[in-house]
């Protein structure tokens, strides 16, 4: 057996799974996005672009913009919060302690995201932990829940490990002698960070940003549970089309629009992304 045939055989299970679980559903979704809703919420398979035309109305574009805003803010905040953590983990911690600390980063995944969101509700609600504490100092209670800030908080909290891990990976393997060279050539700690550490950890920054940005764009749970009635994002909008509104074709069209945004972004940033994979 040639190595080429062996490679095809080895890849086959994965390809089949992708085909059955990803390509086929996407194709079905695309087909129904071209159709029309029936009176009882079914799909009438008469193809037109009406759903896409509707998706581009200002009302929905505004929601898309809000979602992009949320995803950008989440990515940026995660980056700012994760970088020091990853730096400390990867460069300042003795190797023996690292694996234990990395487990702590991954630990939240042992609990369902849904449960963790309810934990946040418990903490942020009017009679919650935070407001009780604030009440004791005479500051509270504040409206901490059901607003955009709460959504951002939940989102950042949920995505943070996905930023820490790739940043850690790229910072950990950064050659110490390069930082010594920077110091040797007259760069103080701040300038060495800015001119050497940051550029060399770019693969981690790019990988982490992609991993955080894309799920945040279609985030559903955090906006749904921590957001208020007036804070609609793409995730909730799409979900509502399939459930309350019973307009599956329009929901499918919105989904596709979101996928398209991601695709366009991936194309725009293809070069740094490719570099981050090879590094």
């Amino acid at each position, binding site marked *: 057996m040639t190595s080429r045939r062996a490679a095809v055989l080895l890849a086959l299970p994965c390809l089949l799974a992708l085909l059955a679980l990803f390509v086929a559903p996407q194709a079905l979704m695309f087909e129904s996005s071209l159709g029309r809703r029936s009176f009882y919420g079914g799909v009438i398979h008469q193809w037109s672009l009406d759903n896409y035309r509707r998706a581009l109305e200002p009302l929905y574009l505004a929601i898309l913009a809000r979602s992009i805003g949320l995803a950008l803010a989440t990515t940026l905040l995660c980056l700012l919060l994760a970088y020091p953590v990853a730096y400390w983990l990867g460069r300042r911690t003795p190797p023996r302690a690292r694996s234990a600390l990395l487990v702590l980063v991954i630990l939240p995944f042992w609990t369902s995201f849904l449960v963790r969101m309810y934990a946040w509700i418990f903490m942020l609600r009017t009679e919650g932990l935070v407001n009780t504490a604030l009440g004791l100092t005479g500051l509270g209670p504040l409206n901490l829940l059901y607003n955009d800030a709460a959504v951002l908080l939940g989102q950042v909290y949920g995505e943070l490990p996905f930023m820490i891990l790739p940043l850690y990976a790229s910072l950990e393997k950064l*050659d110490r*002698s*390069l930082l*010594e*060279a*920077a*110091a*040797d*050539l*007259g*760069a*103080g700690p701040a*300038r*060495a960070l800015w*001119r*050497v550490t940051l*550029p*060399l950890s*770019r693969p981690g920054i790019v990988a982490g940003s992609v991993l955080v940005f894309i799920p945040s764009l279609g985030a559903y749970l955090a906006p749904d549970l921590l957001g208020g009635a007036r804070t609609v994002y793409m995730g909730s909008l799409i979900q509502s089309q399939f459930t309350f509104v019973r307009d599956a074709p329009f929901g499918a069209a919105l989904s596709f629009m979101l996928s398209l945004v991601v695709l366009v972004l991936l194309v725009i940033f293809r070069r740094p992304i490719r570099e981050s994979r090879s590094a």
Partner: protein
Amino acid sequence: MRGEVVLQGLRKAFGDVAAVRDVSLEVRGGEFLTLLGPSGCGKTTLLRMIAGFESPDAGRILISGRDVTALPAYERPVNTVFQQYALFPHRTVAGNVAFGLEMQRRARGEIAERVEKVLEMVRLGGLGDRRPSQLSGGQQQRVALARAVVLEPEVLLLDEPMAALDLKLRQEMRVEVKNLQERLGITFVFVTHDQEEALVMSDRIAVMNRGRVEQVGPPEALYDRPRTRFVADFLAVRNLLPATVVSVASGVAALRTRGGVSFQAADDGGYREGAAVWVGVRPERIRLDEGGVSTDNTLRGTLEDEIYLGDRTDWRVRVGEDTLTVAESAAGARGRRRGEPVTVSFPPAAVLRLDDPEGEGR
């Protein structure tokens, strides 16, 4: 004086392991000084303390008369050429060389001019736009050199900069680096484990062993008169023999080796009758089958082994219970065979008396 490095009582331990123990050394301004020793002798730690990458547990470092012991690396007037070059992979060759000048906030025009000039000097003109990864090992080494030299440091530190190059390139770079040092007049502190490299390049060599400097001197002095067993061993004095001083009289010490061989050594004033000493004789100072002068030591032995090295042959000669290594140059060689009886001779002046401070030979 500018470029002068003074080390006073430096100590450094990593955990329980003492890397540098009480080193005091003065490097003159404009001098090419080599720290020579086997791996683990503390030479790199010493260099890293001068650079500011390690802080000493005790002692002081003065550069050009200024105490820099407490200064961080980025404020010291020294630059380093790293063993694996440590070139910035995200910058071009020119970007690497410009880095230090940018840190000094030089004007853009001045940076470009100086970078170009120094790249010309290390014969890398026209390669400024390349990435370090696109260059050969030798070229990368030149970039590392250029990047350090462009800042005109008072002292340049080189940490085994040629260890990663192949032999031929290494030999070329020796001459090139030496010429560069003479042209620039900068103090070079050079770390290597290669004795040949040290002999070719240095004004003075400091031989290090177990965290201490065992001997400092010009290459010829070290080669001709190694003072300790370790230095002799490291500088290829192949015949090291433990012996007892039988008698000392009129400038000559009579010795008997542990293997029962007797010969005479020129007395340097250090021989004491009845004392145990280590002595060494260089293989090239011993001759095979030649009468020589009557005062020479002449011993009878048997050829035991032959190590052919091209330009010379090293013979292992059995003399009593001892084995001597004798170098015979290819020019003077005659067909000898193993098992042949031979006489070996060497002048008493060729016998080096060696200290053994750590008692390593016993």
